[in-house]
């Protein structure tokens, strides 16, 4: 595929991407072509753009990109430590490329009544199911990174949970970075049909601590009464750039719960857009960023109450150490006529050193009058009343501080329903928060 962008930085980003063969499906080729066109006209955002005010991604432009070498060097022993015991089905991608040898067989999913497969295979077999969703939820008109991801659409994860099917065990989609100076464009599409339920783990890990770019897009569509538990873990290299867009669309009385945890990357940016598209839909969105040194973690969420009688709950927490910088922008939109909207949002930030920075901004745009919207933000040190309570029971200052710092993060981690993943992340929080 050739691409004209008129932008030398983009040119470099595009280098090394494999030539994509045309698909037999016209709509798919058209989608990619549109994204290519769009990517060519959009500019790399700078801090002069309102949505990127606090997040300077210019260091990304200094990164040089090498062609992808292929993932044949990766050994099972390198990747299996990331597997989750509880997951019945697993899809593994290495530097963006689907790795069937590390993934569970498509038959395994079939036995469970699910479709879990790589997108390029699925395009041929499930094109009709995919077409109404792929590229339809995560728009790229105004988003360069989504446009780029869509332009490179090839491999990716497809999960379809058919009507009235309850997937008891979680589906694990594991993206592994193995090559420095590489750019990958991971893609996930989850279609939860009406009355179905599923837990999806979207997991970004690395085998090295070099610099690279992950530019991920996830689309999640919930049918009537569907229930999706979405766990997102970003453990990229401390020198990596992680840019991600996730779009979620909820139909009547469906329920979306997400826990996202950001631990890695030099600069990470996560845009989560949730559309409550039909009455009775509910979403609960919890996030934790645990960062240190010179890391920057930026979460932009938008919860769109498009219709009446929907509920949204959001708790976003940051633990910021070293000279790190956390950004949270939480937009809640209540459309005209979206009466009886019930929405709460809380942003809580814990600073562990004097050189940290937090920018947090609730952004409520309310165009209906009979609604319940509560929001709040705190930035600071540990609460002195909590410290006193623990000390009054004999705990030393250090033990009390460590316990409270850990607890601050654990409140979010505890909401992860998968025990092995929860324990692994609890250990990480413990290791990163404890002082002597």
């Amino acid at each position, binding site marked *: 595929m050739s691409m004209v962008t008129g932008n030398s930085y983009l040119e470099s980003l595009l280098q090394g991407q494999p030539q994509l063969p045309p698909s037999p499906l016209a709509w798919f080729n058209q989608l990619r072509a549109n994204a290519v066109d769009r990517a060519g006209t959009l500019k790399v955002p700078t801090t002069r753009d309102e949505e990127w005010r606090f997040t300077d991604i210019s260091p990304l432009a200094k990164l040089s990109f090498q062609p992808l070498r292929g993932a044949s060097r990766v050994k099972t022993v390198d990747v299996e430590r990331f597997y989750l015991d509880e997951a019945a089905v697993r899809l593994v991608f290495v530097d963006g490329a689907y790795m069937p040898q590390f993934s569970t067989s498509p038959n395994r999913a079939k036995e469970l009544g699910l479709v879990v497969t790589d997108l390029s295979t699925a395009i041929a077999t499930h094109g009709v199911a995919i077409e109404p969703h792929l590229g339809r939820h995560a728009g790229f008109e105004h988003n360069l990174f989504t446009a780029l991801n869509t332009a490179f659409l090839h491999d990716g994860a497809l999960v379809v949970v058919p009507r009235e099917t309850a997937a008891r065990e979680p589906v694990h989609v594991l993206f592994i970075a193995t090559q420095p100076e590489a750019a990958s464009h991971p893609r996930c599409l989850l279609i939860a049909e009406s009355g179905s339920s599923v837990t999806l783990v979207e997991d970004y890990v690395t085998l090295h601590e070099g610099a690279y770019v992950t530019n991920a897009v996830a689309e999640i569509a919930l049918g009537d009464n569907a229930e999706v538990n979405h766990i997102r873990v970003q453990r990229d290299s401390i020198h990596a750039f992680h840019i991600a867009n996730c779009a979620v669309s909820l139909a009547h009385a469906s329920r979306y719960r997400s826990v996202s945890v950001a631990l890695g990357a030099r600069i990470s940016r996560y845009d989560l857009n949730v559309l409550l598209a039909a009455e009775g839909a509910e979403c609960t969105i919890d996030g934790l960023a645990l960062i240190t040194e010179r890391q920057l973690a930026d979460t932009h969420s938008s919860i769109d109450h498009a219709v009446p009688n929907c509920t949204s709950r959001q708790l976003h927490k940051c633990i910021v150490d070293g000279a790190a910088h956390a950004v949270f922008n939480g937009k809640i939109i209540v459309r005209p006529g979206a009466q009886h909207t019930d929405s709460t949002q809380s942003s809580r930030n814990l600073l562990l050193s004097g050189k940290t920075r937090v920018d947090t901004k609730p952004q409520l745009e309310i165009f209906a009058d009979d609604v319940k919207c509560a929001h709040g933000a705190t930035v600071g040190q540990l609460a002195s009343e909590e410290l006193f309570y623990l000390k*009054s*029971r004999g*705990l030393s200052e250090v*033990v009390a501080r460590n*316990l*409270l710092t850990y607890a601050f*993060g654990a*409140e979010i981690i505890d909401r992860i329903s998968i025990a092995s993943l929860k324990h692994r992340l609890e250990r990480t929080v413990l290791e990163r928060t404890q002082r002597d």
Partner: protein
Amino acid sequence: MIYQDSKTLLEIRGLRATVNGIEILKGIDLTVKFGEVHAIMGTNGSGKSTLAKVLAGHDAYQVTGGSVAFEGNDLFDLKPEERARAGVFLAFQYPVEIPGVANSHFLRLAYNTVQAQRGKDELDPLEFDDLVREKMKLLDMNPDFLDRGVNEGFSGGEKKRNEILQMALLEPRLAILDETDSGLDIDALRIVTKGVNRLANKDNAIILVTHYQRLLNYIVPDYVHVMEAGRIIKTGDKELALDLENRGYDWVGAEQRAAVEA
């Protein structure tokens, strides 16, 4: 209960304390001997909760005068955690919620810290689980409370039970119960006070801080002290609490002012 020849546990002399530069305690004198139950009563703002927090070592309060000896040692030489390990326990009026810290973990940490101080063996999670479940039965507490965050989402009554559970585990020398009766319905009050009564013995002492006489129907005090404007203005036996219940607090203050003028 008053025991003959009982030793002094707590000796407060001329205690003064401020918060944000405002004097709240204006010269408190109080002697508590082993085995005794003291009730400190008074209207809101009389300083009774401040006294409780000063004894526990809350850093929002500055001690500006007087002394407090605990088993003969200067209490103010000790940090809050050292006071706890020495046997001072405050049951909070408003226990804080700490999401993310499992109640069982917190209780065991506190228990083992105090055990270690006393030269006793610490318990591993399984051993502790047996102990804590047994203590919870006394307070009619659902074991589910072990798995929840400390006080997280507990009702007012559940929080108070969790405080008394900590008292049962830590076996303090001096337990200060700050408005433990507030927010309790009659059944919960009965259970909580039964728990406290079982813990009272000749080797410890209890200070009950309360606004209402109701609590004292269940935990019978040996002494009742009335606080007003940062001082103890009257001391009596349990009958005094009944007088206060019937007549309110005003007459005590009037009586005291008359005595000063006379």
